[in-house]
């Protein structure tokens, strides 16, 4: 069970189609201050916070439409960012593939503080063993026999979900392709989609090819997974070997986003959308749905959310929880709004209303950095600031 955090504040990392924003609050989460846009003008589809080993490092996956996608880091909560060359993610020449977009950044487990993962487009998993300095494409997935048959979803052929499951197991999900699990530390993996349907294929229950939108799991109960599909809401209790329908009492089982409660493996959150043809919330009512019984029932949460004329949509990485107690829940919409709840979804407040389209929301509780880490961060920060200072006499 993750330790209930009691750090010195809460960060909300918001990736949008035109840059990244950072919201910060005290642990009370009653007032938020916004900074940004950082990485101005670049779509930021992925963000992450790495608080392991005394770090307070932000990560962002940018997708400059002209000059290519890149992984960037900040050690001063967004003030300055690394350059494109510093954490280069590149496909090997032999693959014939080129990086199009970074879709997910996932720090590894706490006991492996220098391990990191990135999910990218075209579907691939990149791994780092040195806290993000260097990256290698996972060979097992790169050479998977199914690769020639994976086809892009509406957003592209993206590996958008990475779920470490412990004991050498890892799950990944892609659109389209489905859910895959490795049981040997990533050397190989098999499709695990029994019970997950693919409405857009002649065979509605293929071995692979589903357009899985999101998978979440709780570290205290890794065998249990929740899955939001392109039509379909599922749970597995055997690490993904089999999936069961849990669309009980939701207005639609179409949707993108999903988040797990930080302390309760039975509790998860989703934002249902009307359909694949009309990707807005049902009845123009913005509602987050929560299950507290592992999907047997779902309850709408709407206090503080607009219930008329709200043609909103939340994308697959646009919903997250923090590890506070009570847990915070956050989401961002395609219309540029960000909502926050400090009472596990019982009530909501809008913390931003006019951002560019929100594509990623990640929450993190800040723990004070130990003094030696602060000195290291300060040195890195000073170096970056000095590199950006104009030389004497330059215009």
């Amino acid at each position, binding site marked *: 069970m993750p330790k209930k955090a009691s750090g010195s504040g809460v960060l909300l990392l918001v990736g949008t189609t035109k840059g990244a924003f950072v919201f910060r609050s005290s642990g009370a989460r009653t007032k938020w201050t916004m900074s940004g846009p950082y990485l101005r*003008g670049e779509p930021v589809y992925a963000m992450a916070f790495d608080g392991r080993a005394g770090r307070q490092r932000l990560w962002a996956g940018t997708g400059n*439409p*002209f*000059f*290519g996608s890149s992984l960037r880091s900040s050690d001063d909560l967004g003030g300055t960012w690394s350059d*494109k*060359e510093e954490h*280069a993610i*590149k*496909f090997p*020449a032999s693959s*014939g*593939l*080129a*990086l199009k977009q970074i879709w997910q950044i996932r720090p590894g487990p706490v006991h492996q503080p220098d391990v990191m993962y990135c999910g990218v487009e075209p579907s691939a998993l990149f791994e780092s063993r040195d806290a993000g300095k260097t990256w290698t494409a996972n060979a097992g997935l790169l050479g998977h026999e199914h690769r020639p048959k994976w086809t892009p979803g509406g957003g592209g052929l993206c590996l958008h979900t990475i779920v470490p499951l412990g004991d050498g197991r890892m799950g990944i999900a892609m659109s389209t392709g489905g859910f895959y699990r490795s049981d040997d530390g990533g050397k190989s993996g098999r499709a695990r989609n029994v019970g997950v349907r693919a409405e857009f294929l002649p065979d509605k229950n293929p071995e692979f090819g589903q357009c899985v939108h999101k998978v979440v799991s709780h570290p205290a109960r890794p065998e249990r997974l929740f899955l939001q599909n392109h039509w379909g809401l599922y749970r597995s209790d055997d690490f993904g070997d089999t999936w069961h329908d849990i669309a009980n009492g939701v207005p639609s089982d179409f949707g993108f986003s999903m988040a797990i409660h930080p302390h309760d493996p039975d509790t998860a959150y989703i934002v249902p959308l009307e359909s694949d043809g009309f990707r807005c919330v049902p009845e123009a009512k913005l509602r987050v749905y929560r299950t507290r019984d592992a999907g047997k029932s779902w309850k709408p949460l709407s206090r503080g959310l607009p219930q008329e004329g709200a043609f909103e949509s939340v994308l697959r990485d646009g919903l997250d929880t923090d590890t506070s107690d009570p847990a915070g829940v956050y989401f961002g919409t395609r219309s540029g709004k960000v909502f926050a709840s400090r009472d596990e979804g019982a009530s909501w407040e809008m913390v931003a209303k006019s951002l560019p389209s929100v594509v990623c929301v990640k929450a993190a509780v800040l723990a004070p950095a130990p003094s030696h880490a602060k000195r290291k961060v300060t040195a890195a920060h000073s170096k970056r600031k000095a590199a950006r200072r104009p030389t004497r006499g330059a215009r």
Partner: protein
Amino acid sequence: MPVVVAIPGPLQPYAGGRSDVMVSAPGGTVGDALEALGDEYPGVRDRVLTEQGDVRQHLNVFVDEDNVRFASGLATPVFDGCRVTILPAVSGG
């Protein structure tokens, strides 16, 4: 064969602040010119070409007024004194 490569504004910081760079294209193609440019300014190369050596989707490269996409791509010939221009396309952004 000397050619001038025109660097777009956002990439000039990676070309030492220069807007025009004279390079030698010994093989006589756009690809040779960009390779020579990349030898001197790898930050520009990585932003113009993918890791597979293709021009990025939302960039255009011109030889004088002609877009190489409608010619022979990176194999498009260059000639003495021509201008190879790199420009962001309207399809991006």
